[in-house]
């Protein structure tokens, strides 16, 4: 598993053959890739559960902070609105980041199990 400008590449073997990429809008089916190992499949499903919501929440958080910046340029804007946007944006960013982190950790565990069960 290797990072590459925001994408994750899943590579196989000593040669590092690229099996697929996992990015914001695309991705291979990891559960199918590791289907030969039951624990790996469980973790891959956990990855799938957390990855999409995490990505969307992070994007939403960034958009909300962008909206805050735009609104804050308007004179006499209600401080409640700007404060709300900052809190909502930051909260969405942090929560989404947490979900993404959980997703990537589940992916790491999935590959760990898959590699382990290759030895049988």
């Amino acid at each position, binding site marked *: *598993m290797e990072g590459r400008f925001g994408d994750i590449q899943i590579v196989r073997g000593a040669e590092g053959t690229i099996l697929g990429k996992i990015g914001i809008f695309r991705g291979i089916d990891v559960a199918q890739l590791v289907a030969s190992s039951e624990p790996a499949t469980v973790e891959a499903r956990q990855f799938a559960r957390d990855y999409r919501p995490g990505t969307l929440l992070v994007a939403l958080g960034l958009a909300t902070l962008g909206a805050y910046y735009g609104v804050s340029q308007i004179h006499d804007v209600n401080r409640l609105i700007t404060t709300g946007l900052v809190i909502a944006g930051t909260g969405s960013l942090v929560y989404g*980041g947490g979900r993404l982190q959980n997703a990537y950790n589940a992916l790491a565990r999935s590959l760990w199990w898959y590699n382990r069960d290759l030895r049988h």
Partner: protein
Amino acid sequence: MKSRLFAALLVGASTFAGPSYAQATRHGTSPAAAPKEPSPVAVPSGKPAAEDSTRFYDSQALRFESRWGSADIKRGVDGTVVGRVGWFRGFDVAALVAASPRAVAEARRFHTENFRGSLVGSAGVVTFLTGIVVASNSSNNAASPILIIAGAGGIAWGAHHLQVGYSALSRAFWWYNRDLSR
């Protein structure tokens, strides 16, 4: 108000600059909590080498899991934490994977890239912060956009090196786990 935006952006940056993209609060199932793997009993008889290999892997194989800007190095099925790496954290990964020469080479690469990424990323954050503060206090100061752009560039460059570093760490553990019991 701008400083609040900056604080929010910093939180976001720390989320992504960490090892997440090469790999928290743990909501997921740990290997120990995942459905039970085929036990040694389930291993077909007549394959003692494979069984030994699996047992060794279960107790010794390494992996890492990210944790808000740092990463825990875990060993075996139980996920015992054997060390932590992250910004300016000096855990000696090369010594941990010393049994595998290729893993050591990747671990050294991780060490170099992690230090470089931490340094440049931190300098970028400081520069970016300074630019924001200057922009907040004197909107006509020509230095502020330069500082902000230079800082953002430093953060991006640092994040890139961190990403390269954690990819090397991932390979280091792959080689180490591969060489287990050989």
